[in-house]
Protein backbone atom coordinates (compact mmCIF):
# COMPACT_ATOMS: atom_id res chain seq x y z
CA UNK A 1 0.00 0.00 0.00
CA UNK A 2 1.29 3.46 -0.83
CA UNK A 3 2.75 5.09 2.27
CA UNK A 4 0.47 8.10 2.15
CA UNK A 5 -2.61 5.93 1.85
CA UNK A 6 -1.39 3.60 4.59
CA UNK A 7 -1.17 6.60 6.88
CA UNK A 8 -4.69 7.72 6.01
CA UNK A 9 -6.42 4.37 6.45
CA UNK A 10 -7.99 4.52 9.89
CA UNK A 11 -7.08 2.00 12.51
CA UNK A 12 -9.76 -0.60 13.11
CA UNK A 13 -12.45 0.68 15.41
CA UNK A 14 -15.31 -0.91 17.29
CA UNK A 15 -17.85 -2.42 14.88
CA UNK A 16 -21.26 -0.81 14.71
CA UNK A 17 -23.43 -3.48 13.13
CA UNK A 18 -26.92 -2.44 12.00
CA UNK A 19 -30.04 -4.61 11.68
CA UNK A 20 -28.97 -5.79 8.21
CA UNK A 21 -25.58 -6.92 9.41
CA UNK A 22 -23.80 -3.96 7.83
CA UNK A 23 -20.90 -2.47 9.78
CA UNK A 24 -21.66 1.25 9.85
CA UNK A 25 -18.25 1.95 11.43
CA UNK A 26 -16.58 0.55 8.32
CA UNK A 27 -18.69 2.84 6.16
CA UNK A 28 -17.78 5.87 8.26
CA UNK A 29 -14.10 4.96 7.87
CA UNK A 30 -14.52 4.86 4.10
CA UNK A 31 -16.29 8.21 4.12
CA UNK A 32 -13.31 9.69 5.99
CA UNK A 33 -11.08 8.90 2.98
CA UNK A 34 -10.99 10.87 -0.26
CA UNK A 35 -12.75 9.21 -3.23
CA UNK A 36 -9.43 8.29 -4.86
CA UNK A 37 -8.17 6.80 -1.60
CA UNK A 38 -11.33 4.68 -1.37
CA UNK A 39 -10.78 3.24 -4.84
CA UNK A 40 -7.08 2.62 -4.26
CA UNK A 41 -7.78 0.95 -0.94
CA UNK A 42 -10.11 -1.55 -2.62
CA UNK A 43 -7.71 -2.13 -5.54
CA UNK A 44 -4.79 -2.71 -3.20
CA UNK A 45 -6.83 -4.99 -0.96
CA UNK A 46 -7.91 -7.15 -3.91
CA UNK A 47 -4.39 -7.04 -5.36
CA UNK A 48 -2.89 -8.17 -2.07
CA UNK A 49 -5.01 -11.33 -2.21
CA UNK A 50 -3.86 -12.33 -5.68
CA UNK A 51 -0.49 -13.83 -4.61
CA UNK A 52 -2.29 -15.87 -1.95
CA UNK A 53 -4.69 -17.18 -4.56
CA UNK A 54 -1.86 -17.98 -6.97
CA UNK A 55 0.10 -19.78 -4.27
CA UNK A 56 -2.99 -21.77 -3.35
CA UNK A 57 -3.55 -22.74 -6.99
CA UNK A 58 0.07 -23.91 -7.16
CA UNK A 59 -0.55 -26.13 -4.16
CA UNK A 60 -3.53 -27.84 -5.80
CA UNK A 61 -2.67 -31.29 -7.16
CA UNK A 62 -2.68 -31.76 -10.93
Amino acid sequence: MADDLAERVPVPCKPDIDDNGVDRAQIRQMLDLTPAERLLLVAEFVGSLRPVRRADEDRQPG
Partner: protein
Amino acid sequence: MKTANPVEILSRLAAAKVEFIVVGMAAGVLRGAPVTTIDVDIVHLRQPDNVSRLLSVLGQLDAVYRHDPRRLRPNESHLTGPGHHLLTTIYGDLDCLGTIGDGESYDDLCARSPDLELRPGLIIRVLDLPTLIALKEKAARPKDLAVLPVLRATLAETLKRA
Protein backbone atom coordinates in the same frame (compact mmCIF):
# COMPACT_ATOMS: atom_id res chain seq x y z
CA MET B 1 -1.19 -5.98 -16.52
CA LYS B 2 0.72 -3.72 -14.16
CA THR B 3 -0.65 -3.35 -10.65
CA ALA B 4 -4.37 -2.60 -10.85
CA ASN B 5 -4.84 1.12 -10.59
CA PRO B 6 -8.39 2.25 -11.29
CA VAL B 7 -7.54 5.80 -10.25
CA GLU B 8 -4.96 6.00 -13.05
CA ILE B 9 -7.53 4.80 -15.61
CA LEU B 10 -10.03 7.43 -14.52
CA SER B 11 -7.37 10.13 -14.30
CA ARG B 12 -6.25 9.52 -17.85
CA LEU B 13 -9.81 9.62 -19.14
CA ALA B 14 -10.48 12.86 -17.29
CA ALA B 15 -7.20 14.45 -18.37
CA ALA B 16 -8.07 13.71 -22.00
CA LYS B 17 -11.46 15.38 -21.48
CA VAL B 18 -13.40 12.21 -22.21
CA GLU B 19 -17.00 12.68 -21.11
CA PHE B 20 -18.02 9.68 -19.02
CA ILE B 21 -19.84 8.65 -15.87
CA VAL B 22 -18.50 6.09 -13.42
CA VAL B 23 -21.24 3.56 -12.68
CA GLY B 24 -21.40 0.14 -11.03
CA MET B 25 -19.60 -0.77 -7.85
CA ALA B 26 -16.64 1.53 -8.55
CA ALA B 27 -19.19 4.34 -8.26
CA GLY B 28 -20.30 2.81 -4.98
CA VAL B 29 -16.71 2.75 -3.70
CA LEU B 30 -16.07 6.33 -4.85
CA ARG B 31 -19.23 7.35 -2.98
CA GLY B 32 -17.92 5.60 0.16
CA ALA B 33 -19.33 2.07 0.14
CA PRO B 34 -16.89 -0.47 1.68
CA VAL B 35 -17.32 -3.07 -1.06
CA THR B 36 -14.87 -4.77 -3.37
CA THR B 37 -14.80 -4.73 -7.13
CA ILE B 38 -12.14 -5.57 -9.67
CA ASP B 39 -13.26 -3.48 -12.61
CA VAL B 40 -14.28 0.04 -13.46
CA ASP B 41 -17.56 0.55 -15.33
CA ILE B 42 -18.16 3.74 -17.26
CA VAL B 43 -20.98 5.01 -19.45
CA HIS B 44 -19.47 7.25 -22.10
CA LEU B 45 -20.98 9.93 -24.30
CA ARG B 46 -21.32 8.25 -27.68
CA GLN B 47 -20.81 11.38 -29.74
CA PRO B 48 -18.02 10.93 -32.37
CA ASP B 49 -15.57 13.50 -30.94
CA ASN B 50 -15.86 11.98 -27.48
CA VAL B 51 -15.49 8.43 -28.80
CA SER B 52 -12.35 9.58 -30.59
CA ARG B 53 -10.89 10.92 -27.32
CA LEU B 54 -11.92 7.72 -25.54
CA LEU B 55 -10.24 5.58 -28.19
CA SER B 56 -7.05 7.59 -27.84
CA VAL B 57 -6.91 6.89 -24.10
CA LEU B 58 -7.81 3.24 -24.64
CA GLY B 59 -4.86 3.02 -27.01
CA GLN B 60 -2.52 4.46 -24.35
CA LEU B 61 -3.89 1.91 -21.90
CA ASP B 62 -3.44 -0.95 -24.40
CA ALA B 63 -7.10 -1.86 -24.00
CA VAL B 64 -8.29 -5.09 -25.60
CA TYR B 65 -11.46 -7.17 -25.26
CA ARG B 66 -10.73 -9.29 -22.24
CA HIS B 67 -12.52 -12.48 -23.26
CA ASP B 68 -11.15 -12.60 -26.77
CA PRO B 69 -7.90 -14.51 -27.39
CA ARG B 70 -7.28 -12.46 -30.56
CA ARG B 71 -6.70 -9.36 -28.39
CA LEU B 72 -9.18 -7.36 -30.44
CA ARG B 73 -9.22 -3.62 -29.83
CA PRO B 74 -12.40 -1.56 -29.67
CA ASN B 75 -13.04 0.80 -32.56
CA GLU B 76 -15.28 3.76 -33.28
CA SER B 77 -18.21 1.72 -34.55
CA HIS B 78 -18.12 -0.41 -31.40
CA LEU B 79 -18.11 2.52 -29.01
CA THR B 80 -20.76 4.61 -30.76
CA GLY B 81 -23.28 1.80 -30.16
CA PRO B 82 -25.32 1.08 -27.03
CA GLY B 83 -23.57 -2.19 -26.19
CA HIS B 84 -21.18 -3.20 -23.43
CA HIS B 85 -17.45 -3.48 -24.11
CA LEU B 86 -15.57 -5.48 -21.52
CA LEU B 87 -11.93 -4.51 -21.82
CA THR B 88 -8.71 -5.16 -20.00
CA THR B 89 -5.95 -2.55 -19.77
CA ILE B 90 -2.48 -2.19 -18.33
CA TYR B 91 -4.11 -0.79 -15.18
CA GLY B 92 -6.91 -3.32 -14.83
CA ASP B 93 -10.31 -4.08 -16.27
CA LEU B 94 -12.46 -1.35 -17.75
CA ASP B 95 -16.00 -1.80 -19.02
CA CYS B 96 -17.15 0.85 -21.49
CA LEU B 97 -20.95 0.76 -21.54
CA GLY B 98 -23.04 2.53 -24.16
CA THR B 99 -26.12 2.27 -21.96
CA ILE B 100 -27.13 0.69 -18.65
CA GLY B 101 -30.40 -0.33 -17.01
CA ASP B 102 -33.33 0.25 -19.35
CA GLY B 103 -31.18 1.73 -22.08
CA GLU B 104 -30.10 4.78 -20.09
CA SER B 105 -27.35 6.72 -21.83
CA TYR B 106 -24.75 9.25 -20.69
CA ASP B 107 -27.22 12.08 -21.32
CA ASP B 108 -29.96 10.30 -19.37
CA LEU B 109 -27.68 9.76 -16.35
CA CYS B 110 -25.87 13.11 -16.25
CA ALA B 111 -28.31 14.86 -13.94
CA ARG B 112 -27.92 12.03 -11.41
CA SER B 113 -24.13 11.95 -11.60
CA PRO B 114 -22.65 14.84 -9.64
CA ASP B 115 -19.06 15.91 -10.08
CA LEU B 116 -16.44 14.43 -7.81
CA GLU B 117 -12.82 15.57 -7.47
CA LEU B 118 -10.64 12.53 -8.08
CA ARG B 119 -7.35 14.37 -7.78
CA PRO B 120 -6.75 18.07 -7.30
CA GLY B 121 -8.17 19.77 -10.38
CA LEU B 122 -9.35 16.49 -11.91
CA ILE B 123 -13.13 16.29 -11.92
CA ILE B 124 -15.13 13.23 -12.92
CA ARG B 125 -18.84 12.42 -12.93
CA VAL B 126 -19.91 9.57 -10.66
CA LEU B 127 -23.40 8.09 -10.45
CA ASP B 128 -25.10 9.08 -7.20
CA LEU B 129 -25.99 6.49 -4.59
CA PRO B 130 -29.80 6.74 -4.92
CA THR B 131 -29.55 5.98 -8.65
CA LEU B 132 -27.04 3.18 -8.11
CA ILE B 133 -29.39 1.66 -5.53
CA ALA B 134 -32.39 2.04 -7.87
CA LEU B 135 -30.50 0.31 -10.68
CA LYS B 136 -29.49 -2.55 -8.40
CA GLU B 137 -33.06 -2.91 -7.14
CA LYS B 138 -34.36 -3.05 -10.68
CA ALA B 139 -31.72 -5.52 -11.89
CA ALA B 140 -32.53 -7.67 -8.84
CA ARG B 141 -30.05 -10.42 -9.64
CA PRO B 142 -28.58 -12.14 -6.60
CA LYS B 143 -25.31 -10.20 -7.00
CA ASP B 144 -27.24 -6.91 -7.09
CA LEU B 145 -29.43 -7.74 -4.12
CA ALA B 146 -26.37 -8.81 -2.09
CA VAL B 147 -24.85 -5.32 -2.10
CA LEU B 148 -28.04 -3.39 -1.43
CA PRO B 149 -27.78 -3.34 2.40
CA VAL B 150 -24.28 -1.85 2.23
CA LEU B 151 -25.26 0.72 -0.42
CA ARG B 152 -28.36 1.77 1.52
CA ALA B 153 -26.39 2.07 4.76
CA THR B 154 -23.72 4.13 2.96
CA LEU B 155 -26.41 6.47 1.66
CA ALA B 156 -27.82 6.84 5.18
CA GLU B 157 -24.38 7.64 6.64
CA THR B 158 -23.68 10.08 3.81
CA LEU B 159 -26.96 11.91 4.42
CA LYS B 160 -26.08 12.24 8.12
CA ARG B 161 -22.93 14.12 7.09
CA ALA B 162 -24.66 16.39 4.61
